[in-house]
């Protein structure tokens, strides 16, 4: 990879340790993806904010880095472990809260926008088409590449952080225009709900390379699209999809049998003592839908609803949160189903959710059993 003189100097450490570290990451990721150069990016979205996922090593790393590092471009951040406003309602140990606060302080010192959201594409104005960005959160990277006409690699927590500190990223394949996926997945199920599209995404992630075509799906509403992107991000390396046939590419079918395989992999129980909605976090439209679906009903068990803080505030003004709380929902900001320590196998046996991504991490990281159902069925069966 060709570097400019200034980039070379930074790599050698002439502009400080933080930049040297950032360039070391950019050069490794650039070499690995055969990028010929670095290009400027306008927006970085960083993951690695939740103490539950990055642990002590991550907390110390960020604390050291933030002593002199500042972001160079607009930088938004992924969810953390809990809701800042109501953490005292939950039985979290003090050590967790202390470490999580240290992580939050480190990001604040680096001057990020404290968004704590995995759906930056839904809460910030999007730049013009073809703008180069650097998004780590996998559902967001896939969403902005495929739906929002922006360009990003399927970044890692460190490569997006390196982009935030330098304003640059390797010019790898996903950033270029000439994307021609070599595989088409044919959706064989008609009128799929958001859970089925999440399973299609999970399957697609497993079999696709860096990009893929999907046929048999004309368009997806926002809820389904987020579910699809999150499923795909969980299972693979694929960073972009295109909805069309693609004449000369290899074809693979997604039918009832394939869907059952995914369901059997991720659905581990038929019962639950908690419902979670929001992985990815819910947007305003979804909260509005949910409050209409719940008119005159209430949940028979605890239901946690995850959304970004800005969405929570808007929903409050519009009266949606009142309706949701009346129906028994606990609305949480700043965090998400995935990997929040608020859901722990010590106090929860099984979780009902419509999120494939949530299911994977609840099972593998939180060690909790999962019962998968689409939203309509959750409302039908879990309310009175």
């Amino acid at each position, binding site marked *: 990879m060709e570097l400019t003189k200034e980039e070379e100097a930074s790599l050698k450490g002439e502009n400080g340790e933080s930049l040297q*570290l950032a360039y*070391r*990451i950019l050069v*490794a*990721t650039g*070499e*690995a*993806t055969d990028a010929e150069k670095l290009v400027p990016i306008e927006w970085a979205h960083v*993951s*690695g904010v*939740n103490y539950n*996922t*990055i*642990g*002590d*090593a*991550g907390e*110390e*790393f960020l604390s050291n880095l933030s002593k002199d590092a500042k972001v160079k471009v607009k930088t938004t951040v992924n969810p953390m472990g809990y809701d800042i406003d109501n953490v005292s309602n939950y039985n979290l140990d003090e050590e967790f809260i202390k470490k999580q606060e240290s992580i939050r302080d480190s990001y604040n010192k680096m001057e990020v926008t404290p968004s704590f959201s995995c759906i930056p594409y839904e809460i910030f104005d999007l730049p013009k088409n073809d703008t180069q960005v650097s998004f*780590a*959160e*996998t559902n967001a*990277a896939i969403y902005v590449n495929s739906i929002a006409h922006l360009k990003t*690699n*399927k*970044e*890692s*927590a*460190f*490569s*997006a952080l*390196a982009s935030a500190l330098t304003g640059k990223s390797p010019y790898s394949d996903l950033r270029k225009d000439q994307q021609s996926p070599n595989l088409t997945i044919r959706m064989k199920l008609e009128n799929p709900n958001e859970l089925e599209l999440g399973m299609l995404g999970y399957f697609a*992630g497993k079999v696709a390379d860096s990009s893929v075509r999907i046929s048999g799906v004309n368009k997806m509403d926002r809820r389904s699209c987020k579910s699809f992107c999150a499923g795909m*991000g*969980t*299972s*693979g*390396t694929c960073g972009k999809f295109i909805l069309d046939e693609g004449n000369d590419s290899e074809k693979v079918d997604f039918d009832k049998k394939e869907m059952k395989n995914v369901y059997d*992999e991720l659905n581990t129980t038929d019962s639950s003592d908690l419902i979670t909605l929001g992985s990815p976090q819910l947007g305003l439209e979804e909260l509005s839908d949910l409050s209409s679906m719940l008119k005159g009903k209430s949940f028979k068990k605890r239901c946690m609803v995850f959304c970004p803080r800005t969405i929570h505030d808007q929903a409050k003004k519009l009266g949606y949160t009142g309706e949701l709380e009346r129906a028994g929902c606990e609305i949480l900001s700043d965090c998400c189903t995935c990997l929040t320590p608020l859901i722990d196998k010590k106090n929860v046996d099984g979780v009902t959710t419509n999120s494939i991504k949530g299911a*994977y*991490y609840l099972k*593998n*990281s939180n060690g909790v059993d999962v019962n998968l159902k689409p939203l309509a069925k959750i409302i039908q069966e879990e309310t009175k």
Partner: protein
Amino acid sequence: MTLKIIVKGIAKGKIMKTNIPINFLGAVDKKTGVIRDDKHDMFQKSIKNTILVFPHGIGSSVGAYTIYSLKSNDSAPSGMICTKADLSVVSGCALANIPMVIASQKQYDSLVDGQEITLDAESGTFSTN
């Protein structure tokens, strides 16, 4: 043919090989290096001090922190060999200084689970000990 060097260094160890990709965030315990995904064929094995040979990383972008944590907790593989680059594994190894290379399919196929090797990610070669 030489290996494509991503993170330089020299590593010695026993090969732990799987043909199933790894989601470091969900599947690996960051303190111990033990695989905790019961659907993975390395379930309950530890990747500590091994030369980890696997197709590529998948899933979460935070998997990069898992690799960095493994190193800090002294539970990381000594080196990694993949056939495809994914940015979580690459950046995690770059930050943790774990020698990492990309191998061709032929080179990858020649690596045998349990074999003691030296991975030379300075010259881009490996040899049996």
